[in-house]
Protein backbone atom coordinates (compact mmCIF):
# COMPACT_ATOMS: atom_id res chain seq x y z
CA UNK A 1 0.00 0.00 0.00
CA UNK A 2 1.36 3.37 -0.88
CA UNK A 3 2.11 5.71 1.92
CA UNK A 4 1.02 8.75 0.00
CA UNK A 5 -0.27 11.53 2.14
CA UNK A 6 -3.79 12.43 1.34
CA UNK A 7 -4.93 15.87 0.55
CA UNK A 8 -5.44 17.78 3.76
CA UNK A 9 -8.57 19.60 4.74
CA UNK A 10 -6.77 22.93 4.46
CA UNK A 11 -5.77 22.15 0.90
CA UNK A 12 -9.29 21.05 0.16
CA UNK A 13 -10.56 24.44 1.15
CA UNK A 14 -9.02 25.84 -2.03
CA UNK A 15 -11.20 23.71 -4.21
CA UNK A 16 -14.78 24.51 -4.67
CA UNK A 17 -15.58 22.06 -7.35
CA UNK A 18 -16.71 18.65 -6.18
CA UNK A 19 -15.40 16.72 -9.17
CA UNK A 20 -11.96 18.24 -8.71
CA UNK A 21 -12.00 17.46 -5.01
CA UNK A 22 -13.06 13.90 -5.65
CA UNK A 23 -10.23 13.47 -8.14
CA UNK A 24 -7.67 14.92 -5.73
CA UNK A 25 -8.82 12.74 -2.86
CA UNK A 26 -8.84 9.53 -4.84
CA UNK A 27 -5.64 10.06 -6.77
CA UNK A 28 -3.73 10.72 -3.59
CA UNK A 29 -5.07 7.48 -2.24
CA UNK A 30 -4.89 4.93 -4.99
CA UNK A 31 -1.33 5.28 -6.21
CA UNK A 32 0.21 1.88 -5.71
CA UNK A 33 -2.83 0.59 -3.90
CA UNK A 34 -5.12 -0.22 -6.74
CA UNK A 35 -4.75 -3.01 -9.21
CA UNK A 36 -5.90 -2.27 -12.73
CA UNK A 37 -9.30 -0.68 -12.36
CA UNK A 38 -10.30 -1.65 -15.86
CA UNK A 39 -11.78 -5.06 -15.79
CA UNK A 40 -15.14 -6.24 -16.93
CA UNK A 41 -16.91 -4.43 -19.72
CA UNK A 42 -19.52 -1.77 -19.78
CA UNK A 43 -22.26 -3.15 -22.01
CA UNK A 44 -23.45 -6.62 -22.85
CA UNK A 45 -25.61 -7.83 -25.70
CA UNK A 46 -28.62 -9.20 -23.84
CA UNK A 47 -31.49 -9.86 -26.25
CA UNK A 48 -33.10 -9.49 -29.67
CA UNK A 49 -36.37 -7.59 -29.91
CA UNK A 50 -38.69 -7.35 -32.90
CA UNK A 51 -38.17 -4.08 -34.76
CA UNK A 52 -41.04 -1.59 -34.50
CA UNK A 53 -41.66 0.51 -37.61
CA UNK A 54 -40.57 4.11 -37.10
CA UNK A 55 -37.86 3.21 -34.62
CA UNK A 56 -34.20 4.07 -35.30
CA UNK A 57 -32.49 1.42 -37.45
CA UNK A 58 -29.19 1.98 -35.68
CA UNK A 59 -29.34 -1.19 -33.61
CA UNK A 60 -31.00 -3.45 -36.18
CA UNK A 61 -29.15 -6.75 -36.48
CA UNK A 62 -28.60 -6.84 -40.23
CA UNK A 63 -27.02 -10.28 -40.21
CA UNK A 64 -30.21 -11.71 -38.76
CA UNK A 65 -32.24 -9.73 -41.30
CA UNK A 66 -30.15 -11.32 -44.05
CA UNK A 67 -30.83 -14.79 -42.70
CA UNK A 68 -34.45 -14.57 -41.63
CA UNK A 69 -35.89 -11.61 -43.59
CA UNK A 70 -37.15 -10.21 -40.30
CA UNK A 71 -35.85 -7.14 -38.56
CA UNK A 72 -34.66 -7.51 -34.98
CA UNK A 73 -33.10 -4.89 -32.79
CA UNK A 74 -30.17 -5.74 -30.57
CA UNK A 75 -30.71 -4.69 -26.99
CA UNK A 76 -27.79 -4.13 -24.69
CA UNK A 77 -27.67 -4.18 -20.97
CA UNK A 78 -25.31 -2.15 -18.89
CA UNK A 79 -22.90 -4.65 -17.49
CA UNK A 80 -21.19 -3.85 -14.28
CA UNK A 81 -19.16 -5.56 -11.63
CA UNK A 82 -20.77 -3.78 -8.76
CA UNK A 83 -23.83 -1.69 -8.11
CA UNK A 84 -23.46 0.81 -5.36
CA UNK A 85 -26.12 3.00 -3.82
CA UNK A 86 -24.73 5.95 -1.91
CA UNK A 87 -27.18 7.25 0.67
CA UNK A 88 -26.52 10.66 2.16
CA UNK A 89 -28.36 12.12 5.13
CA UNK A 90 -29.21 15.72 4.16
CA UNK A 91 -31.09 16.70 7.30
CA UNK A 92 -30.31 19.94 9.10
CA UNK A 93 -28.07 18.35 11.71
CA UNK A 94 -25.63 17.49 8.93
CA UNK A 95 -24.93 21.20 8.44
CA UNK A 96 -23.07 21.31 11.75
CA UNK A 97 -20.68 23.10 12.40
CA UNK A 98 -22.74 25.93 11.03
CA UNK A 99 -19.88 28.40 10.96
CA UNK A 100 -17.57 26.11 8.96
CA UNK A 101 -15.06 28.11 6.96
CA UNK A 102 -15.35 31.18 9.21
CA UNK A 103 -12.18 32.67 10.63
CA UNK A 104 -10.33 30.20 12.82
CA UNK A 105 -12.79 27.38 12.08
CA UNK A 106 -12.15 24.26 10.04
CA UNK A 107 -13.53 24.68 6.54
CA UNK A 108 -15.73 21.65 6.69
CA UNK A 109 -19.06 20.59 8.07
CA UNK A 110 -20.68 17.16 8.10
CA UNK A 111 -22.65 17.55 4.87
CA UNK A 112 -19.59 18.82 3.01
CA UNK A 113 -17.54 15.93 4.36
CA UNK A 114 -20.24 13.43 3.36
CA UNK A 115 -20.57 15.01 -0.09
CA UNK A 116 -16.83 14.96 -0.79
CA UNK A 117 -16.63 11.37 0.48
CA UNK A 118 -19.57 10.37 -1.71
CA UNK A 119 -18.07 12.16 -4.72
CA UNK A 120 -14.71 10.44 -4.14
CA UNK A 121 -16.36 7.03 -3.95
CA UNK A 122 -18.29 7.78 -7.14
CA UNK A 123 -15.09 8.81 -8.87
CA UNK A 124 -13.50 5.53 -7.86
CA UNK A 125 -16.55 3.52 -8.89
CA UNK A 126 -16.65 5.27 -12.23
CA UNK A 127 -12.99 4.49 -12.84
CA UNK A 128 -13.80 0.85 -12.30
CA UNK A 129 -16.81 1.01 -14.59
CA UNK A 130 -19.04 0.24 -11.64
CA UNK A 131 -22.55 1.62 -11.44
CA UNK A 132 -23.63 3.97 -8.67
CA UNK A 133 -26.81 5.71 -7.63
CA UNK A 134 -27.47 8.42 -5.07
CA UNK A 135 -30.19 8.77 -2.47
CA UNK A 136 -30.66 11.85 -0.32
CA UNK A 137 -32.98 11.87 2.65
CA UNK A 138 -34.02 14.01 5.59
CA UNK A 139 -37.54 13.60 6.97
CA UNK A 140 -38.40 11.88 3.67
CA UNK A 141 -36.59 10.40 0.69
CA UNK A 142 -35.80 13.52 -1.31
CA UNK A 143 -33.79 12.07 -4.15
CA UNK A 144 -33.28 8.58 -5.44
CA UNK A 145 -31.53 7.70 -8.68
CA UNK A 146 -30.96 4.30 -10.20
CA UNK A 147 -27.40 3.02 -10.45
CA UNK A 148 -25.60 3.90 -13.68
CA UNK A 149 -21.99 4.27 -14.68
CA UNK A 150 -22.02 6.95 -17.34
CA UNK A 151 -20.16 10.26 -17.23
CA UNK A 152 -23.35 12.29 -17.52
CA UNK A 153 -24.86 10.39 -14.59
CA UNK A 154 -21.73 11.10 -12.54
CA UNK A 155 -21.94 14.82 -13.26
CA UNK A 156 -25.62 14.89 -12.40
CA UNK A 157 -24.95 13.18 -9.07
CA UNK A 158 -22.20 15.70 -8.28
CA UNK A 159 -24.63 18.48 -9.07
CA UNK A 160 -27.17 17.06 -6.61
CA UNK A 161 -24.49 16.94 -3.92
CA UNK A 162 -23.23 20.42 -4.73
CA UNK A 163 -26.78 21.77 -4.49
CA UNK A 164 -27.08 20.30 -1.01
CA UNK A 165 -23.90 22.00 0.14
CA UNK A 166 -24.89 25.33 -1.34
CA UNK A 167 -28.48 25.38 -0.17
CA UNK A 168 -28.70 24.38 3.48
CA UNK A 169 -31.97 22.76 4.45
CA UNK A 170 -32.90 24.27 7.75
CA UNK A 171 -35.21 22.73 10.30
CA UNK A 172 -35.41 19.42 8.46
CA UNK A 173 -35.49 16.57 10.98
CA UNK A 174 -34.03 13.14 10.30
CA UNK A 175 -36.39 10.24 9.82
CA UNK A 176 -34.13 7.61 8.43
CA UNK A 177 -36.38 4.57 8.86
CA UNK A 178 -39.01 5.39 6.22
CA UNK A 179 -36.41 6.49 3.70
CA UNK A 180 -34.29 3.39 4.20
CA UNK A 181 -37.35 1.16 3.77
CA UNK A 182 -38.16 2.98 0.52
CA UNK A 183 -34.60 2.62 -0.71
CA UNK A 184 -34.63 -1.10 0.13
CA UNK A 185 -37.85 -1.48 -1.88
CA UNK A 186 -36.49 0.42 -4.86
CA UNK A 187 -33.17 -1.41 -5.18
CA UNK A 188 -34.02 -4.38 -7.31
CA UNK A 189 -30.57 -5.78 -7.76
CA UNK A 190 -28.10 -6.74 -5.10
CA UNK A 191 -26.09 -3.65 -4.30
CA UNK A 192 -23.51 -2.28 -1.95
CA UNK A 193 -25.32 0.37 0.10
CA UNK A 194 -23.09 3.04 1.61
CA UNK A 195 -24.80 5.31 4.11
CA UNK A 196 -23.42 8.63 5.33
CA UNK A 197 -25.32 9.88 8.32
CA UNK A 198 -24.78 11.35 11.76
CA UNK A 199 -27.62 9.05 12.88
CA UNK A 200 -29.07 11.88 14.93
CA UNK A 201 -32.43 10.47 14.06
CA UNK A 202 -35.54 11.35 16.00
CA UNK A 203 -35.64 7.69 17.00
CA UNK A 204 -32.14 7.90 18.43
CA UNK A 205 -32.50 11.19 20.22
CA UNK A 206 -35.94 10.45 21.65
CA UNK A 207 -34.62 7.26 23.21
CA UNK A 208 -37.92 5.51 22.49
CA UNK A 209 -37.17 1.85 21.98
CA UNK A 210 -40.09 1.45 19.59
CA UNK A 211 -38.79 4.14 17.24
CA UNK A 212 -35.30 2.73 17.59
CA UNK A 213 -36.55 -0.66 16.50
CA UNK A 214 -38.13 0.99 13.44
CA UNK A 215 -34.78 2.41 12.43
CA UNK A 216 -32.94 -0.85 12.88
CA UNK A 217 -35.64 -2.82 11.13
CA UNK A 218 -35.07 -0.50 8.13
CA UNK A 219 -31.37 -1.34 8.18
CA UNK A 220 -32.29 -5.00 8.52
CA UNK A 221 -34.62 -4.64 5.52
CA UNK A 222 -31.60 -3.70 3.40
CA UNK A 223 -29.68 -6.72 4.66
CA UNK A 224 -32.71 -8.96 4.15
CA UNK A 225 -32.78 -7.90 0.49
CA UNK A 226 -29.21 -9.24 0.31
CA UNK A 227 -27.53 -5.85 0.03
CA UNK A 228 -24.19 -5.26 1.67
CA UNK A 229 -24.29 -2.23 3.92
CA UNK A 230 -21.58 0.13 5.20
CA UNK A 231 -22.71 2.81 7.61
CA UNK A 232 -20.36 5.78 7.92
CA UNK A 233 -21.23 7.55 11.13
CA UNK A 234 -20.26 11.11 10.23
CA UNK A 235 -19.35 13.08 13.35
CA UNK A 236 -17.54 16.18 14.45
CA UNK A 237 -15.64 14.14 17.02
CA UNK A 238 -14.20 17.07 18.95
CA UNK A 239 -17.58 18.62 19.65
CA UNK A 240 -20.13 15.87 19.27
CA UNK A 241 -18.37 12.90 20.84
CA UNK A 242 -15.80 14.51 23.15
CA UNK A 243 -17.84 17.63 23.99
CA UNK A 244 -14.66 19.71 23.96
CA UNK A 245 -16.11 23.14 24.65
CA UNK A 246 -14.47 25.81 26.79
CA UNK A 247 -15.92 26.15 30.25
CA UNK A 248 -18.12 29.15 29.65
CA UNK A 249 -21.80 29.68 29.03
CA UNK A 250 -23.01 28.61 25.60
CA UNK A 251 -26.30 28.73 23.79
CA UNK A 252 -26.83 25.33 22.20
CA UNK A 253 -29.21 25.35 19.26
CA UNK A 254 -30.87 22.21 17.94
CA UNK A 255 -30.29 22.47 14.19
CA UNK A 256 -33.32 20.38 13.35
CA UNK A 257 -35.90 22.08 15.56
CA UNK A 258 -34.33 25.44 16.36
CA UNK A 259 -34.75 24.82 20.10
CA UNK A 260 -32.26 26.81 22.18
CA UNK A 261 -30.73 25.89 25.56
CA UNK A 262 -28.39 28.06 27.62
CA UNK A 263 -25.78 26.00 29.40
CA UNK A 264 -22.44 26.07 31.10
CA UNK A 265 -20.64 23.32 29.19
CA UNK A 266 -19.05 21.68 32.25
CA UNK A 267 -22.42 21.27 33.96
CA UNK A 268 -23.69 18.87 31.35
CA UNK A 269 -20.48 17.37 30.03
CA UNK A 270 -20.68 14.22 32.17
CA UNK A 271 -24.28 13.37 31.31
CA UNK A 272 -23.73 14.26 27.67
CA UNK A 273 -20.70 11.99 27.37
CA UNK A 274 -22.53 9.12 29.09
CA UNK A 275 -25.53 9.53 26.83
CA UNK A 276 -23.40 9.80 23.70
CA UNK A 277 -21.33 6.74 24.65
CA UNK A 278 -24.50 4.71 25.17
CA UNK A 279 -25.88 5.96 21.87
CA UNK A 280 -22.72 5.00 19.98
CA UNK A 281 -22.55 1.66 21.69
CA UNK A 282 -26.15 0.85 20.74
CA UNK A 283 -25.39 1.76 17.14
CA UNK A 284 -22.26 -0.36 17.05
CA UNK A 285 -23.92 -3.33 18.69
CA UNK A 286 -26.97 -3.38 16.48
CA UNK A 287 -24.86 -2.94 13.35
CA UNK A 288 -22.66 -5.84 14.42
CA UNK A 289 -25.79 -7.92 15.03
CA UNK A 290 -27.04 -7.28 11.49
CA UNK A 291 -23.57 -7.65 9.97
CA UNK A 292 -23.51 -4.04 8.87
CA UNK A 293 -20.07 -2.44 8.71
CA UNK A 294 -20.10 0.46 11.13
CA UNK A 295 -17.34 3.00 10.55
CA UNK A 296 -16.90 6.17 12.53
CA UNK A 297 -15.92 9.03 10.22
CA UNK A 298 -14.58 12.13 11.91
CA UNK A 299 -14.89 15.15 9.65
CA UNK A 300 -11.54 16.46 10.87
CA UNK A 301 -9.65 13.40 9.69
CA UNK A 302 -8.66 12.68 6.10
CA UNK A 303 -10.68 10.71 3.58
CA UNK A 304 -8.62 7.55 3.94
CA UNK A 305 -11.07 6.52 6.66
CA UNK A 306 -13.78 6.38 3.96
CA UNK A 307 -11.91 4.94 0.99
CA UNK A 308 -10.15 2.17 2.87
CA UNK A 309 -13.20 0.44 4.40
CA UNK A 310 -14.89 0.68 0.99
CA UNK A 311 -11.98 -1.04 -0.74
CA UNK A 312 -11.80 -3.73 1.95
CA UNK A 313 -15.53 -4.40 1.56
CA UNK A 314 -15.30 -4.43 -2.20
CA UNK A 315 -12.36 -6.81 -2.06
CA UNK A 316 -14.49 -9.19 0.01
CA UNK A 317 -17.45 -8.96 -2.34
CA UNK A 318 -15.69 -9.97 -5.55
Amino acid at each position, binding site marked *: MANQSLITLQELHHFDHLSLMAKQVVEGFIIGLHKSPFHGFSVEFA*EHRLYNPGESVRNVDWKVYGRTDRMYVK*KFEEETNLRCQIVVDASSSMYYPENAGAKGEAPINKIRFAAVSAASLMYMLRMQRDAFGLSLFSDQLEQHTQARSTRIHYQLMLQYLQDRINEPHLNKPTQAADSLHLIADRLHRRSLVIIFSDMLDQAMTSGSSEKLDDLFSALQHLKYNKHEVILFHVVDKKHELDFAFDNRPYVFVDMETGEKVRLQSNQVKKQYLEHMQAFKKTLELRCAQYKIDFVEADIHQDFKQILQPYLVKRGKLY
Partner: protein
Amino acid sequence: MALEITDNNFEETVINQDKVAVLDFWADWCGPCKVIAPFIEELAQEYDGKAVIGKVNVDDNGGVAIKYGIRNIPTVLFIKDGKVVDKQVGAASKSVLEEKLKSHL
Protein backbone atom coordinates in the same frame (compact mmCIF):
# COMPACT_ATOMS: atom_id res chain seq x y z
CA MET B 1 -31.98 -32.75 -21.70
CA ALA B 2 -34.52 -29.96 -22.15
CA LEU B 3 -37.66 -30.97 -24.03
CA GLU B 4 -38.23 -29.71 -27.58
CA ILE B 5 -41.60 -27.96 -27.39
CA THR B 6 -43.42 -27.49 -30.68
CA ASP B 7 -46.80 -26.07 -31.68
CA ASN B 8 -48.06 -29.68 -31.81
CA ASN B 9 -46.88 -31.02 -28.45
CA PHE B 10 -47.29 -27.77 -26.47
CA GLU B 11 -50.75 -28.47 -25.02
CA GLU B 12 -49.85 -31.97 -23.98
CA THR B 13 -46.40 -31.31 -22.44
CA VAL B 14 -46.94 -27.89 -20.89
CA ILE B 15 -50.62 -27.25 -20.25
CA ASN B 16 -52.05 -30.70 -19.49
CA GLN B 17 -49.71 -31.49 -16.60
CA ASP B 18 -49.43 -30.24 -13.02
CA LYS B 19 -45.76 -29.26 -12.70
CA VAL B 20 -44.21 -25.83 -13.22
CA ALA B 21 -43.05 -25.44 -16.82
CA VAL B 22 -40.04 -23.37 -17.81
CA LEU B 23 -40.05 -22.43 -21.50
CA ASP B 24 -37.03 -20.90 -23.20
CA PHE B 25 -37.97 -19.10 -26.44
CA TRP B 26 -34.92 -19.02 -28.69
CA ALA B 27 -33.61 -18.97 -32.26
CA ASP B 28 -30.37 -20.34 -33.63
CA TRP B 29 -29.21 -16.95 -34.94
CA CYS B 30 -29.56 -15.24 -31.57
CA GLY B 31 -26.34 -14.82 -29.58
CA PRO B 32 -27.81 -14.15 -26.13
CA CYS B 33 -30.01 -17.27 -26.53
CA LYS B 34 -26.80 -19.27 -26.78
CA VAL B 35 -25.61 -17.73 -23.53
CA ILE B 36 -28.56 -19.06 -21.56
CA ALA B 37 -28.95 -22.39 -23.42
CA PRO B 38 -26.46 -24.23 -21.16
CA PHE B 39 -28.24 -22.91 -18.05
CA ILE B 40 -31.54 -24.28 -19.33
CA GLU B 41 -29.91 -27.66 -19.99
CA GLU B 42 -28.41 -27.72 -16.49
CA LEU B 43 -31.76 -26.81 -14.92
CA ALA B 44 -33.40 -29.58 -16.97
CA GLN B 45 -31.02 -32.11 -15.41
CA GLU B 46 -31.16 -30.73 -11.89
CA TYR B 47 -34.95 -30.38 -11.77
CA ASP B 48 -35.76 -33.54 -13.70
CA GLY B 49 -39.10 -34.84 -12.37
CA LYS B 50 -39.81 -31.65 -10.40
CA ALA B 51 -40.42 -29.26 -13.30
CA VAL B 52 -40.90 -29.41 -17.05
CA ILE B 53 -38.07 -27.60 -18.75
CA GLY B 54 -38.44 -27.02 -22.48
CA LYS B 55 -37.15 -24.99 -25.39
CA VAL B 56 -39.28 -23.39 -28.10
CA ASN B 57 -37.61 -22.47 -31.38
CA VAL B 58 -39.53 -19.33 -32.39
CA ASP B 59 -38.68 -19.71 -36.08
CA ASP B 60 -40.29 -23.14 -36.32
CA ASN B 61 -43.06 -22.73 -33.74
CA GLY B 62 -44.64 -19.35 -34.32
CA GLY B 63 -47.93 -20.52 -32.81
CA VAL B 64 -46.65 -20.77 -29.23
CA ALA B 65 -44.61 -17.58 -29.56
CA ILE B 66 -47.64 -15.64 -30.83
CA LYS B 67 -49.89 -17.12 -28.13
CA TYR B 68 -47.63 -15.61 -25.45
CA GLY B 69 -46.81 -12.43 -27.40
CA ILE B 70 -43.09 -13.13 -27.48
CA ARG B 71 -41.38 -10.16 -29.12
CA ASN B 72 -37.99 -10.44 -27.49
CA ILE B 73 -35.68 -13.40 -27.40
CA PRO B 74 -34.41 -14.98 -25.32
CA THR B 75 -37.52 -14.96 -23.16
CA VAL B 76 -38.02 -17.54 -20.43
CA LEU B 77 -41.60 -18.09 -19.28
CA PHE B 78 -42.54 -19.82 -16.04
CA ILE B 79 -45.95 -21.42 -16.48
CA LYS B 80 -48.01 -22.95 -13.69
CA ASP B 81 -51.54 -24.35 -14.08
CA GLY B 82 -51.66 -22.98 -17.62
CA LYS B 83 -50.87 -19.43 -16.53
CA VAL B 84 -47.66 -17.42 -16.90
CA VAL B 85 -46.48 -16.79 -13.32
CA ASP B 86 -43.09 -15.24 -14.06
CA LYS B 87 -40.98 -14.12 -16.96
CA GLN B 88 -37.34 -13.36 -17.70
CA VAL B 89 -36.60 -11.31 -20.80
CA GLY B 90 -33.02 -11.16 -22.02
CA ALA B 91 -29.93 -13.08 -21.04
CA ALA B 92 -29.72 -13.79 -17.32
CA SER B 93 -27.49 -15.81 -15.06
CA LYS B 94 -28.39 -19.32 -13.98
CA SER B 95 -28.95 -18.20 -10.41
CA VAL B 96 -31.62 -15.71 -11.53
CA LEU B 97 -33.48 -18.37 -13.48
CA GLU B 98 -33.12 -20.92 -10.70
CA GLU B 99 -34.38 -18.50 -8.07
CA LYS B 100 -37.48 -17.77 -10.13
CA LEU B 101 -38.09 -21.47 -10.69
CA LYS B 102 -37.64 -22.31 -7.01
CA SER B 103 -40.14 -19.67 -5.96
CA HIS B 104 -42.85 -21.44 -7.96
CA LEU B 105 -42.08 -25.05 -7.11
